[in-house]
């Protein structure tokens, strides 16, 4: 790989990594409070994409520009965030809470999660059609500026900025707010948190909603970058899950780091080994890291945010 190629893949790699980070946070947050992998999180992502697609297709004029573009992007962010939040909220209520009330074993949660995932993506295929759809044009996607000579277009910039804003916002929320303290307390010791007056059910539900907002918005951003389809959640979902494990499941900063790493690895795989190896290296990295550090790069210390 020449230096020039290296440069050209950097921005797309970072953009993809930022997206994976945001999705990975959804997995790791829920794991933190419930010790369960919400495998239906990929469908939260997918439905967020569809939510934005459907609303924006209705309202977007042919060639928006300027302020209209900005408003459309904001509308897409809000709609996808709300759809993601609603989906995650419903998932917790329907697929997980009844099991928690009956103290079901972990395996049952896993089956319920996979079942919910199948149900949702097939439902989306049935409702919205099985062909991939492009987001309507929200802005003129020109090159904005160059970094070290590599072009940065509007979509990539939007993706990176939005993802970073979400990551920073979430980090502040978890470390600085009362809700964040409660989430950390529940992750560390739910029973002790209850003795402090923390309503665990409410915190679990809010944790799902926070993860859902991030996942839904990631779906919209992903759709802008490529397309929206009922199967779009699968690869990003499984990669982001791998990213969360790679960084140390339950560890927020680990999820961010793992997402960035896998986004870059996946992107650089293409010029290095060819397109057909795109998804292989990410998992090879995962396996390699876990062989030497089974708790992930930053460690799976539960409830730890740093």
């Amino acid at each position, binding site marked *: 790989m020449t230096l020039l190629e290296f440069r050209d893949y950097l921005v797309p790699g970072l953009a993809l990594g930022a997206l994976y980070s945001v999705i990975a946070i959804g997995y790791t947050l829920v794991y933190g409070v419930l010790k369960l992998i919400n495998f239906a999180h990929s469908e939260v992502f997918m439905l967020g994409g569809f939510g934005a697609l459907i609303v924006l297709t209705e309202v977007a004029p042919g060639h928006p520009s300027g302020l209209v573009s900005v408003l459309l992007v904001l509308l897409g962010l809000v709609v996808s965030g709300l759809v993601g939040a609603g989906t995650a909220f419903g998932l917790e209520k329907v697929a997980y809470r009844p099991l928690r009330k009956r103290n079901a074993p972990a395996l049952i949660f896993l089956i319920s999660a996979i079942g919910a995932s199948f149900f949702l993506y097939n439902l989306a295929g049935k409702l919205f059609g099985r062909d991939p759809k492009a987001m309507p044009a929200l802005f003129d996607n020109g090159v904005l500026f160059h970094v070290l000579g590599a072009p940065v277009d509007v979509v990539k910039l939007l993706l990176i900025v939005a993802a970073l804003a979400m990551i920073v916002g979430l980090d502040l929320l978890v470390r600085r707010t*009362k809700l964040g*303290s*409660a989430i950390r307390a529940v992750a*560390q010791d739910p*029973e*002790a948190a*209850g*003795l402090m*007056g923390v309503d665990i059910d409410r915190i679990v539900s809010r944790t799902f909603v926070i993860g859902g907002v991030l996942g839904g918005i990631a779906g919209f951003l992903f759709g802008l970058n490529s397309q929206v389809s009922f199967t779009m959640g699968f690869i990003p979902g499984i990669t982001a899950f791998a990213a969360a494990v790679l960084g140390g499941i339950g560890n927020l900063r680990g999820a961010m780091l793992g997402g960035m790493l896998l986004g870059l690895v996946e992107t650089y795989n293409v010029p290095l080994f060819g397109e057909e190896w795109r998804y292989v290296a990410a998992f090879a990295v995962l396996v390699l890291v876990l062989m030497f550090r089974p708790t992930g790069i930053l460690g799976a210390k539960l409830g730890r945010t740093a």
Partner: protein
Amino acid sequence: MTAATHLVHRTATTDPAPAPATAPATAPAPAILELADLHVSYGAISALRGIDMVVREGEVVALLGANGAGKTTTLRTVSGLHRPTAGEVRFCGERIDGVSSHAVVGLGIGHSPEGRRVFADMTVLENLHMGAYRFKRLRQEDLERVFTLFPRLAERRTQQAGTLSGGEQQMLAMGRALMGRPELLLLDEPSMGLAPLIVAQIFEIIKEINAQGTTVLLVEQNAAQALKIADRGYVLETGRITMHAPARELLDDPRIRTAYLGETTP
């Protein structure tokens, strides 16, 4: 001065008559906590088999017993972590069995659990904030009260709780429970695993907390220390109350001396 106030307080609330369970000589303080025929089971195993117990306002009551007697289960049931299979828990006259643990805190019951259970990855200050979770915001005077009782916590306020010594963690668990301004404080084995000097300190502080107006229900294996600061004591054996008397009487009782104070029969 604190010892003096404590003494006044104690004589005001407890009755020195020999048989308080049946006929108190003067009007007793109102009951803050009542357990009536309380049964708790874990699956097929019954941990509590019909417990009757009263804690009156302003008292320190010690609940003694060997490992597995059901002491911790009793406290956990009061806090709503277990549901009784039969019987009642009443706090200030209201039934609270079946109320979930986070709601029990809001009623005014603080619980410093067995094994301390501090949030290891949070700082001392963050742990204390969690203790005040039921309030909209933490009140500075509560924080100052805890730091006055436990100056060590003030020194270590920015330190991660997991890096504290056992004694400091115990202080944090108690301080955290106090941040919720409990009327009744449940203390589960505060002396467990601590050096004698620290144990003495902890018990001094429990006396002080009580003197400041908090009723204390104390679960202890260290019967000698517990009975020294308690007004009354209950002895729990395999899920049943087998003895109940003023603390001083229990301290002198030969059965207690052999079973819980480590003395051989004379």
